[in-house]
């Protein structure tokens, strides 16, 4: 059986999927990045291999997410894609007539507008991470509620509290204030969900036409309270795909399949044994000019695999870029 690997390494989670030749999901892994993207990808590959039937042969690999170039080197990618395109491809695959994609991850959020299968506009949060997964995590921990149950509390609310959502620091003090004067927990939680949705729409959706079907994906789509708040704010049904939390990786796998189509050369994928390779990363400050760029270097057994981080490009290792970029 043929399979296509998709890897999405984000700030909070690292997701890997294998899609078969009919574009169906064979297996997935969802794990925390824990600030160690290389380890996360290697451990993820190991875990993924255990979940796969032995007959699967990986014909193509794609990476996305904020660590897409790094994970592209580690896994051996045929294509490296930005997360906006990857999420749009996955959403259109699962919901073919999707017109709007809401994606909220650990530390960023995106809004993608699709018309007739083509992305026509997008926005990504710039100045503020209010309303992303990390903040919800933090609030759940502060209230002593497991993050998995956070959303179901919100569903119990009959009269949501007004929470100031423009800034997470003030949202937190507002929540504390509401707790101190005796609001019910579920009303505070749902009020927070509403505030975060309001903030998301104010930051990303201004001037954009939100048409249904609206697809909601990313880790935060698990949160029933945020789903409810989006539904109410947009007055629209919100579609949450079955594998909402690994959609970036699904997109990367689909793009990998497209990238290797008709190609005779074998995939760049290094195999699941890539998990055993010992990568060494180091960094140094370039003294070439007053920019003092910090250059990151990835090596295997003394051989430089990749180098990046400079403003002028003099340290970039060209072969790597060619090896992972593939045809577009």
């Amino acid at each position, binding site marked *: 059986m043929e399979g296509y690997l998709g890897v999405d390494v984000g700030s909070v989670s690292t997701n890997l999927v294998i899609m078969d030749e009919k574009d169906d999901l064979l297996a997935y892994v969802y794990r925390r990045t824990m600030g160690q993207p290389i380890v996360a990808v290697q451990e993820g590959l190991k875990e993924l291999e255990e979940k796969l039937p032995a007959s699967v042969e990986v014909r193509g690999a794609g990476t996305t997410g904020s660590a897409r170039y790094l994970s592209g080197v580690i896994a051996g990618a045929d294509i490296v894609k930005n997360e906006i395109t990857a999420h749009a491809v996955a959403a259109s695959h699962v919901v073919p007539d999707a017109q709007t994609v809401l994606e909220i991850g650990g530390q960023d959020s995106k809004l993608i507008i699709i018309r007739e299968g083509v992305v026509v*506009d997008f926005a990504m949060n710039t100045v503020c991470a209010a309303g992303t997964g990390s903040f919800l995590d933090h609030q759940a921990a502060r209230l002593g509620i497991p993050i998995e149950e956070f959303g179901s509390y919100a569903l119990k609310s009959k009269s949501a509290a007004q929470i100031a959502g423009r800034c997470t620091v003030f949202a937190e003090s507002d929540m504390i204030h509401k707790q101190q004067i005796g609001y019910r927990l579920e009303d505070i939680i749902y009020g927070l969900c509403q505030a975060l949705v309001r903030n998301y729409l104010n930051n990303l959706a201004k*001037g954009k036409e939100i048409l249904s079907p609206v697809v909601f994906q990313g880790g935060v789509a698990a949160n029933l309270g945020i789903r409810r708040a989006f539904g109410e704010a947009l007055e629209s049904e919100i579609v949450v795909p079955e594998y909402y939390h690994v959609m970036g990786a699904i997109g990367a796998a689909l793009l990998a399949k497209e990238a290797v189509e008709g190609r005779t050369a074998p995939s760049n994928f290094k195999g699941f044994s890539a998990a055993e390779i010992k990568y060494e990363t180091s960094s140094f400050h370039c003294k070439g000019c007053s920019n003092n760029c910090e250059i990151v270097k990835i090596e295997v057994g003394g051989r430089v695999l990749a180098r990046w981080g400079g403003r002028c490009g003099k340290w970039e290792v060209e072969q790597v870029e060619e090896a992972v970029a593939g045809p*577009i």
Partner: protein
Amino acid sequence: MKVTFPHMGTIDSLLSDLFTRLEIDFLVPPKTSTKTISLGARYAPEFACFPLKVNIGNLIEGLDLGADTVAMVGGLGPCRFGFYAEVQNRVLRDIGYDFEMIVLEPPAIGMKIFLERCRRLAPKKSLWQIFQAVRIGWKKAVAVDEVEKRVLQTRAFERKKGDTTRAHRRALKVLSEAVTAEEIRSAREEALAIIDSVERREQDSLRVGIVGEFYILLEPFVNFGIEEYLGNEGIYLERSVYLTDWLNPGGKKPVFGTTREKIHHAAEPYLAHFVGGEGQDTIGHIVEWAREGFDGIIHFLPFTCMPEIIAKSIFPKIDRELDIPILSLVIDEQTGRAGVITRLEAFIDLMRNKRKKRLVAS
């Protein structure tokens, strides 16, 4: 007297040339770097726009190296930049620098005012000598801009990565050595020929227009070298403003092509009057390029830039009516390169897919 000035794209070559002609002792500050920006952000008011912060950083670096006079361009109209000379003067004095500030108001305010200000830098020269130096130096500056424009149109087609950038460097060197009007004329021909000699490959490239606030557009360091990045991605570029266009907004033959009247006329259905800075030009250029069938527009503005924010609020309407994708990028000292590149990658995908779909449909 030792004169220093803030950087802005190729203004260092223009001013070095002019000051040499007028025998003014000058000091080019170190190239803008992250150190420049952190110095500027430390002393400039937080809510001033990014150009002021970078300028103050440049001037501090110039003064620290021994300059005692600052030449700063002024400006017309309700864009804060025109007032920055005065703000810089006060900020730098508050820090404790002692220097003379000479504000070079653009010739559009009045040729005589402009020449008299220059004369404060070169007291031994007559107004006529200054006029001649400016006249000839200007020809060179226009040639530098024309070469830059040709570079933007060429890089997308280069066969070997980096050839255009190398040719650009050679072309600028040829121009920098020219002194007389006659030499400048032939150096211009030679420089353009150098760019045209870059070996090309045929390819179906996207066409993108770059618009927005002039400083961010003109200074590659603050816009993360976006033009080179896009050129390397195989994208043909046009830009709404070049250095000499900005210095002489009333020019009859601007380097960007067409004329400002035409651009303002094109903007009319969406924005019929001046809103400060280049707000109206931004709209006009987008409309023109949309009509010419460009694949997309990239818009740059410094955080808190009022004229460009006004322009930006009109984009959804333009996109609806003329079907042209526009990506706005807000730049200041907090902006990270990774975020800009992610958005650009996605925007390039968007334009490629849109074009593919159009091809399939026809």
